[in-house]
C-alpha cells in the first residue's frame, strides 16, 4: 500500500475504543426491537382459577355433546375489540381475542372475561403512565388441529427496555375443555421430568451455539438459575401434537433471547401421560 495511505490507515486504526463501547453494544443488542408487539398479564393465580372451573365442567360437557353430533358450531377465535391510543410518548395497541362457538357457555364466558379483563388492566396501566411507555398485545392461533385449539397471546411492555410475556389457552374443541398442564399427567412427577429435560436442552443448545445463553449454570450466574418449571407453567400443544413449554422474557435467559420455548419430546413424558389423545 502507498505510504501516505498507510499512514492514514494507521491513524484510523489507532482511534481509541472507549471502555463504554462493550457495555453499550451488549445492551443495545439485548433490547427487543421497538416494534409493534403484544401483551397479556394474567397472573398465574387468575389463570389457575379458570383452569379449575373448566376442567371440572368438562366431563359433563363432553357427555352432552357426544349425544348431539354435528350440531356444534365451529369453535374459533375472533377479535373482540381493538384499542389503539397514543398521547405524546405513551402508546397502547391491544387486540382482545374472543373465543366463540363453544357450547359450553361457562367456559367460553370465563375465557372471554379474562381476555377482556386483561385489556382493561393494560388500558389502566397505560392511562396512569407518564413519560415513555408503550404497551401492546396481540394474539394468534398457533394450533387448530385434531380437536386442539391453542391460542397464544403476547404482551409487551416497553419502558426503556421491553418485557415480553406469552400466555396460552389450549382447548379441547371436541370435548370443550380447557387443557391444563397438570391435567395432562397422571401425577405431579411431570414437574421434575420436564424440568430435567429443559435443563438438558439448555446445556445442549449453549454447547452448540455460543450466542445462546440460559440461566442454568450456578457457577456462572450471579442471579437465580433455572431449577424447575411452575406446576402451571405456560405451555401449548403444537400442530404435531408435541408439548411446548414457554417462558417469559428474562425468566430463564437474558433479554435478547426473548420469550423462549422448549419442545418436549413425547418419549420423555410418555410413561406419565394420562393418555395419548392430546400429546403424541
Amino acid at each position: 500500500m502507498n505510504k501516505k495511505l498507510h499512514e492514514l490507515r494507521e491513524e484510523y486504526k489507532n482511534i481509541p475504543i472507549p471502555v463504554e463501547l462493550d457495555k453499550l453494544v451488549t445492551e443495545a443488542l439485548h433490547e427487543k426491537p421497538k416494534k409493534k408487539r403484544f401483551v397479556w398479564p394474567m397472573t398465574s393465580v387468575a389463570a389457575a382459577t379458570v383452569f379449575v372451573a373448566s376442567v371440572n365442567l368438562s366431563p359433563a360437557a363432553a357427555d352432552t355433546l357426544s349425544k348431539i353430533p354435528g350440531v356444534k358450531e365451529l369453535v374459533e377465535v375472533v377479535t373482540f375489540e381493538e384499542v389503539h391510543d397514543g398521547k405524546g410518548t405513551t402508546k397502547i395497541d391491544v387486540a382482545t381475542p374472543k373465543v366463540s362457538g363453544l357450547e359450553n357457555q361457562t367456559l367460553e364466558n370465563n375465557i372471554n372475561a379474562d381476555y377482556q379483563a386483561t385489556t382493561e388492566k393494560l388500558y389502566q396501566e397505560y392511562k396512569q403512565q407518564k413519560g415513555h411507555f408503550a404497551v401492546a398485545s396481540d394474539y394468534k392461533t398457533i394450533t387448530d388441529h385434531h380437536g386442539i385449539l391453542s391460542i397464544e397471546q403476547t404482551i409487551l411492555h416497553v419502558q426503556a427496555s421491553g418485557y415480553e410475556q406469552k400466555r396460552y389457552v389450549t382447548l379441547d374443541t371436541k370435548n370443550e375443555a380447557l387443557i391444563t398442564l397438570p391435567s395432562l399427567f397422571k401425577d405431579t412427577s411431570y414437574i421434575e421430568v420436564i424440568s430435567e429435560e429443559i435443563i438438558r436442552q439448555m446445556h445442549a443448545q449453549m454447547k452448540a451455539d455460543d450466542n445462546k445463553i440460559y440461566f442454568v449454570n450456578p457457577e456462572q450466574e450471579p442471579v437465580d438459575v433455572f431449577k424447575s418449571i411452575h406446576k402451571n407453567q405456560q405451555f401449548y400443544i403444537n400442530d404435531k401434537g408435541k408439548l411446548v413449554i414457554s417462558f417469559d422474557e428474562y425468566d430463564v435467559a437474558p433479554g435478547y433471547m426473548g420469550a423462549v420455548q422448549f419442545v418436549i419430546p413425547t418419549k420423555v413424558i410418555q410413561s406419565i401421560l394420562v393418555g395419548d389423545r392430546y400429546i403424541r
Partner: protein
Amino acid sequence: MTKRHDIRAQFVACVTDYKDDFYRLAYSYVKNQQDALDIVQDAIQKGLQALERLEKMDSMKSWFYKIVVRTAIDFLRKHKRVTVMDDDTLDYLQSGAEDHYEDIDLHEALERLPIEYRTIIVLRYFEDLKIDAIAEIVDENVNTVKTRLYRGLKLLRIEITEGTVHE
C-alpha cells in the same frame, strides 16, 4: 430454533465481533466519542428492526456497515455538519489542489474531503472492503465508486498506480 432466531443470533455475533470496526467507522465521521457511541447504538437498534423484515443476506458485516454509514451521515445532516458537493465543485478544487494545499497535512486533507469520497476511501483502505461491497454499501454502481476513489486519492495527492484503485 427458527430461521429468524438464526439471523438474529448471526447479527448479535457479527456486531459483537466487529464492534471496534463499526465504532471506528462511526468515529471517522463525527470525531468525538459520545456521538460515535450514539451512532453505534442507533445503528444497532435500526439493525434489529430491519432484521425482522430481512429475507436473506449475503454478508451480515457489509449490511451492517451500510447501516452505520447511513446513520452517521444522517447524524451529520441533522447537525448540519455536512455539505453535499457536486462533481463540478470538486473538479475545481481538484485543479487547485496542488497549489493551495501544499502545507496541510494528510490527515487534514482527508477530513476536508467531501463525505461521499471520504466514505469510500475509509471503507476501501481502512476497512479493507472490496469495491463491489462498497458499491453495495453506498448504493452506487461499481464505476461511480472507482471514479470517486480515484478522485478522492487525487485530492489527497496520493500517487495513483493502477493497483491502488483496483483490486
